[in-house]
């Protein structure tokens, strides 16, 4: 451990730029380099997970089995979920944290730079291992990203062991990343940067990091129990030996529900930075925003069983989890009201980051509404495990987490690379994504309500029309992301130079340093007024 605690600043790098070549990336301890690597890695995973989604949507374009067999279809749904959750969304937020948190709190780097390097470089191996299972005998994991026992233990393909090690590795990476964020925020703030002066992005990440430290070990625990059941003859989840498959679901969702907020809280932070900038008006209700995020995080620990209303819990259990879940609507509502009020009587412009943020607020709220409907236990008996649920969580994750990430990239890219992106192409990217995404996911509400279960490779004829529409939307959304790749590369290579402040209404320490941000920033702590 002591290596990690070494002086966080590399003296030999103090006065010049980074070394050249591959070694720069392999051994870097610079938060900006590591942030960039996280973001590129997550984008690569986003494309891979996206291709899996398109495989699913292509098979579902028409009733009947055309392209893939059910066995492979199940591997695609499973891997799509795992890759998007652990490979795309979470690393993208860690990448943003790396780039932004030190610059926002006036620190020279992350608190634990060597550990930072490790936590990134574990990821390619974790996902390499996970993806390689697709090419092994018996195929990859096919039990859904929620991997319910006994389908994932007694009845799993042999590759489940690799899956478990993959999850362990990405868990270790996340935990190290979270510890780093906590240490940076608690210990590295510039003098005068009190907790209640921190930008909301920093606040949301601090709370996210605490959630990660609390629940990633539980995920590690549950996959360890699986490993023991599969290989060492224990029966944690096997009824024959006195275990209980329902226990798996309780432990999994004890991790799983906070995990949902891990994927959305940093996006709350991003949007809370961007909306004030383009409204040219301070964020409304900063304090209540902080308290709302904290209460959402705390509530996330007592609502897990709303994912399992149909397992046969006793009445009082159903009622407790129903009420607790409904309660989450209150702080979430506060956040939405605050964003809208921030825009109210502002002076609004609609550059790409703002467009993505506004779409975030609207579409995330729609996802929130369907979430509220799902919280109502008696109705949930009809919604549970149908496409209504698929629509719900894609509405909170795609225009929620993913749009939040896009907004962040457009907003800070000029600071990162020193060049502006093409606003025209970005608007195309936004509108194509917006239309594609709604086309893909809105009809899923109808499919679910009409009775289509999730995770099925083929469906009854009455579901055909909406499935076709959804597939068209999915391919539109997917193809549009190549435009995003193109315009980011274009901005980096040949965009117009950006000013230091970049955006007219932007406030915060990161806008006081030159564009592009120098390799080392805030080696001397800034003055906070």
């Amino acid at each position: 451990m002591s290596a990690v605690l070494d002086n966080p600043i590399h003296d030999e790098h103090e006065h010049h730029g980074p070394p050249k070549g591959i070694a720069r990336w392999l051994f870097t301890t610079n938060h900006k380099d590591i942030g960039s690597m996280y973001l590129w890695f997550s984008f690569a995973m986003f494309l891979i997970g996206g291709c899996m989604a398109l495989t699913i949507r292509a098979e579902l374009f028409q009733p009947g089995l055309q392209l893939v067999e059910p066995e492979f279809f199940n591997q695609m749904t499973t891997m799509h979920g795992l890759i998007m959750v652990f490979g795309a969304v979470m690393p993208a937020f860690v990448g943003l944290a790396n780039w932004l948190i030190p610059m926002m709190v006036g620190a020279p780097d992350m608190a634990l730079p060597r550990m930072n390097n490790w936590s990134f470089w574990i990821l390619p191996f974790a996902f390499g291992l996970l993806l390689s299972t697709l090419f092994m005998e018996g195929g990859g994991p096919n039990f859904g990203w929620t991997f319910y026992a006994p389908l994932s233990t007694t009845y799993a393909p042999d590759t489940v062991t690799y899956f478990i090690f993959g999850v362990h590795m990405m868990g270790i990476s996340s935990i190290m990343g979270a510890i780093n964020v906590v240490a940076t925020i608690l210990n590295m703030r510039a003098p005068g940067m009190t907790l209640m002066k921190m930008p909301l992005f920093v606040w949301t990440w601090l709370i996210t990091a605490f959630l990660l430290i609390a629940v990633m070990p539980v995920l590690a625990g549950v996959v360890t129990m699986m490993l023991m059941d599969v290989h060492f003859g224990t029966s944690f989840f096997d009824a024959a030996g006195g275990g209980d498959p329902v226990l798996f679901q309780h432990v999994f969702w004890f991790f799983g529900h906070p995990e949902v907020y891990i994927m959305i809280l940093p996006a709350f932070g991003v949007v809370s930075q961007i909306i004030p900038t383009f409204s040219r008006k301070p964020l409304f209700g900063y304090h209540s925003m902080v308290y709302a995020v904290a209460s959402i995080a705390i509530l996330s620990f007592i609502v897990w069983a709303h994912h399992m209303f149909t397992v046969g819990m006793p009445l009082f259990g159903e009622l407790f989890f129903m009420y607790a879940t409904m309660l989450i609507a209150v702080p979430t509502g506060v956040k939405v009201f605050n964003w809208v009020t921030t825009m109210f009587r502002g002076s609004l412009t609609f550059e790409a980051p703002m467009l993505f943020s506004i779409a975030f607020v609207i579409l995330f709220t729609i996802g929130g509404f369907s979430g509220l409907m799902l919280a109502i236990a008696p109705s949930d008996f009809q919604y549970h495990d149908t496409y209504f649920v698929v629509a719900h969580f894609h509405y909170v994750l795609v225009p929620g987490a993913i749009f939040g990430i896009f907004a962040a990239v457009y907003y800070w890219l000029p600071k990162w690379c020193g060049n502006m992106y093409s606003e025209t192409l970005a608007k195309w990217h936004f509108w194509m994504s917006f239309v594609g995404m709604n086309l893909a996911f809105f009809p899923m509400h109808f499919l679910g309500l009409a009775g289509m279960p999730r995770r099925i490779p083929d469906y009854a004829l009455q579901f055909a029309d909406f499935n076709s529409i959804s597939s068209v939307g999915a391919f539109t959304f997917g193809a549009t992301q190549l435009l995003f790749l193109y315009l980011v590369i274009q901005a980096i290579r040949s965009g117009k130079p950006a000013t230091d402040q970049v955006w007219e209404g932007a406030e915060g320490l990161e806008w006081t340093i030159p564009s592009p941000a120098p390799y080392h920033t805030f080696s001397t702590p800034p003055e906070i007024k």
Partner: protein
Amino acid sequence: MGHQGQNRRTIAKSVIAVVAMFGFGFALVPLYDVFCEVTGLNGKTRGQYSEAEAGKQQVDESRRVRVQFIANNNESMPWEFRPVEFQIKVHPGAMAEVNYYAKNPTSKRMIAQAVPSLSPSEGTGYFHKTECFCFTSQTLEPGEEVLMPLRFVVDQALPDHLSTLTLSYTLFDQTEALLDVETENKNELAVR
């Protein structure tokens, strides 16, 4: 820089939290069992109830409760397994005895474990078994058949709105898991 000490403390606290939460994941297993026992969450009936306790129950002649018996075989369990009677009516507080029939039709010696489950789960706290074939695993020789007894008492305090209790047993094949243990034990004895 003065952050080193602070960072070390943050790491130490975080690592303790991580280890504690990893442990908590495992602690959820016994916690869940306790929670289930208190609430009847998953319909798992409790362990053995003493005859002495059962004797202390007041027989409630004023009402009768329907108790139903179900038998299930888990996957690739070839035994014949069924309750002798499908349902009986009992007074709360009174002892009752029923039998399950089992036969091993295969040509191998087999070991099975019966796993009980009671529905509605609210009733689990009021269903006391003084003798049950589910307390231990059952071994049957090839072709052997057996009547397995179950003695129980329904608690006098059973809430009025519970008029039917359904007890289900699922038979799991434990031959592979337990036969090794059995042979090992025998080998040990032989050595001694």
